[in-house]
């Protein structure tokens, strides 16, 4: 085993000399090449599956195209059109409401559930599984299940309300004023399981000694939750809020499965608008422009969210 070591030592010596001259040595070159070879598949995959589609999307957003045949470059006209379109603005507002409403709802519910299980309530082992189950159900099945459940007369929710004397004719999905809230509620129901597991994991990482010290100082369980648990899990919590908001913002399946964006455009979110523009109306240019606008908004939201999360973590 001495020969390679000798070669290696000699290589280092040459490398030191080369570096002194400002040129990379053989070892450094070899290392750079090895790093490049190792990174190459990842870079190629990124370019193919991420870079090319984004470039294509932006190109389409600057074109007039039916989805078939040739594209015609029209500059920023699609952006002017979609930003002045009340249907798109309504879809944007709905997306923001769905994104923020479900992210906040999911995190509040998941944090409460996580705190209960972390505190060791009776049956907590079962709850770990039960509360996660909605998270593994396919979104399309969830959409069908809940849209049936909230139907007047025949739906399970209305049947329960009817049995309680609260009436069984509530047609929430049929009313523009309530349909989006039903979708948000279902998104919370489905998303809480995943968030619960992540937040629970973060809670279980909090040192027991911190709770013990607080208990000795006479802090109540509620005080310990707000003064110890929440601050220490805040980075995880902010990441979960961010992810849930992004997923809900792009949550096409649930909305399409439950309402198809209706009644009218009451629950149309940006991805629904993209789908309709592209595939129902053959307007791929405006559809791509909407997708770009949505992407930019999410990117900005992601940066701000990450910055806020990391800033708070640093404060601690």
């Amino acid at each position: 085993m001495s020969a390679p070591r000798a070669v290696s030592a000699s290589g280092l010596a040459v490398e030191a000399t080369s570096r002194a001259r400002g040129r990379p040595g053989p070892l450094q070159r070899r290392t750079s090449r090895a790093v490049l070879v190792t990174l190459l598949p990842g870079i190629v995959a990124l370019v193919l599956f991420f870079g090319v589609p984004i470039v294509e999307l932006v190109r389409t957003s600057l074109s007039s195209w039916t989805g078939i045949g040739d594209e015609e470059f029209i500059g920023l006209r699609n952006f002017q059109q979609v930003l002045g379109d009340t249907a798109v603005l309504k879809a944007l507002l709905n997306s923001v409401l769905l994104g923020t409403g479900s992210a906040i709802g999911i995190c509040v519910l998941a944090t409460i559930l996580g705190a209960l299980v972390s505190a060791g309530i009776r049956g907590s082992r079962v709850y770990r599984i039960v509360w996660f189950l909605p998270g593994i159900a396919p979104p399309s099945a969830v959409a069908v299940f809940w849209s049936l459940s909230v139907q007047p007369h025949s739906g399970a929710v209305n049947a329960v309300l009817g049995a309680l004397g609260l009436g069984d004719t509530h047609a929430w999905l049929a009313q523009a004023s309530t349909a989006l809230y039903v979708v948000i509620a279902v998104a919370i129901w489905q998303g809480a399981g995943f968030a619960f597991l992540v937040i629970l994991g973060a809670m279980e990482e909090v040192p027991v000694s911190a709770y013990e010290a607080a208990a000795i100082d006479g802090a109540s369980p509620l005080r310990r939750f707000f003064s110890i648990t929440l601050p220490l899990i805040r980075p995880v919590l902010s990441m979960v809020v961010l992810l849930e908001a992004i997923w809900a913002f792009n949550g096409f399946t649930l909305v399409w499965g439950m309402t198809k964006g209706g009644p009218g455009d009451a629950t149309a979110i940006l991805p629904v608008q993209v789908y309709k523009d592209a595939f129902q109306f053959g307007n791929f240019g405006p559809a791509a422009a909407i997708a770009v606008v949505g992407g930019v908004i999410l990117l900005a939201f992601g940066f701000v969210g990450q910055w806020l999360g990391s800033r708070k973590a640093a404060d601690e």
Partner: protein
Amino acid sequence: MQSPAARRGALRRLVATGVAAAIAGLSLAACSSGSGGSDHTLTVQVQAAQVPAFKNVVAKFEAQNKGVTVKLQTLTDEQKITTNGQIMAGNNAPDVGIVPTNAQSYTDLIKAKALLPLDDVWEKSDLESRYGSAIADSLKSNGTPYVVLFDKTLYNIIFYNKTAFEQAGITAPPDRQIASNDDLYQIVSALKGKGYEGIANGGNDGYRWGWMLDAQLYANASKSAFDDLTTSWQAGHKQKVKYTDPEFTDSVKQIKDWYDHGVFPEGVLGQSDDQAQALFTSGKAAMILDGAFSPPEIDKEKPGFEYDWVLMPGATAGKPTIPTAYAGDTFAIPKKAKNPALAKKFVELFVSDEMQAEQAKITGALPAVTTVDPATIPSLGEKVQSIVAYTKDKGSGVGWTSVLPGGLAQSFFDPQMQKVLGGQQTIAQLAQNQQQQFETFTSQNAR
């Protein structure tokens, strides 16, 4: 133990071998997709409900063309009117595709010259006379047929629960036509008195309000106005009747009046077709808006009551609606089809009298050609036969959403109507939006 130089050499050889293998693999893949699928395999699109009928034609076709295998590619209702346009124009296009003539993709495929003209198929199968001139004309684009109609149907039929009618003391109109809105409201009121909902309708599925409008426009608008509404979008036509005119808005108002009078079940705007059918077959709703294709589906649910059918009233008392004909389920052969000659043979076989009768027997859909009389196909069932017999006597209507491109009619109108019914906009606003959509559409597509 290898030296670094030897290791570098080995690495280079490994990379070179990998690249060569990848190139060889890609070449083989290219060859296989280019040839393996071309000579002996014909790809034909089919909707799930029609698979049994298609399999029957496939068996016959394969027997007639030894060595040829037909691969069926299943489409959903949603796909056929949305994403299938891109598939038809893509490099992996099927040999025979399904293109509804009222889908936006049909207009876009014609505009992009992505379909083969099928004059030879029409001539060989004598489709001009076998379809009848009205349907034949509606299937052509600037005089050229790019599609072949493979079945027909009738819609805007109201099926009703006979037991519910009896319980509510309602006698169904002998001529099947509910004469006026007042009569309709009395029927619904009597049914509600017995605990039944009115007319179940998939109000959020994106085409049912358009269906209703089809029957209303045909019944309410003057012939010249109706003709204008159904042709003014085409190149070379000048719009005479605007969508803001009463000829159009009166029919919209009719549907709104029904909604306001509780003709439809609670929550209809949040219900899908399946939910509407469940309401009817479970006996909760006493009526359902459907078509000649529905009895097999209703019977499959074993509803536990007898049912029959009636027609909705028009806006003017004594001028009721008639069933609306849909003749838009068509085959098309993409320009990028790998086996266009075989594809044409398959289409010709499908529209032969023998196969048309067979597919009607199997699926319950009506034959596309007039040379096959549905009355000679008992398996269509008593209700379908009675609907067909009725249209032979009284005629059938043309559907506005059936003949206009989806981006202008069906896909656009239904959400607009939902907004009217849900109180999000007025009929006047709907009319303005529809007119604006017409102007945008015609400036982009037809002229």
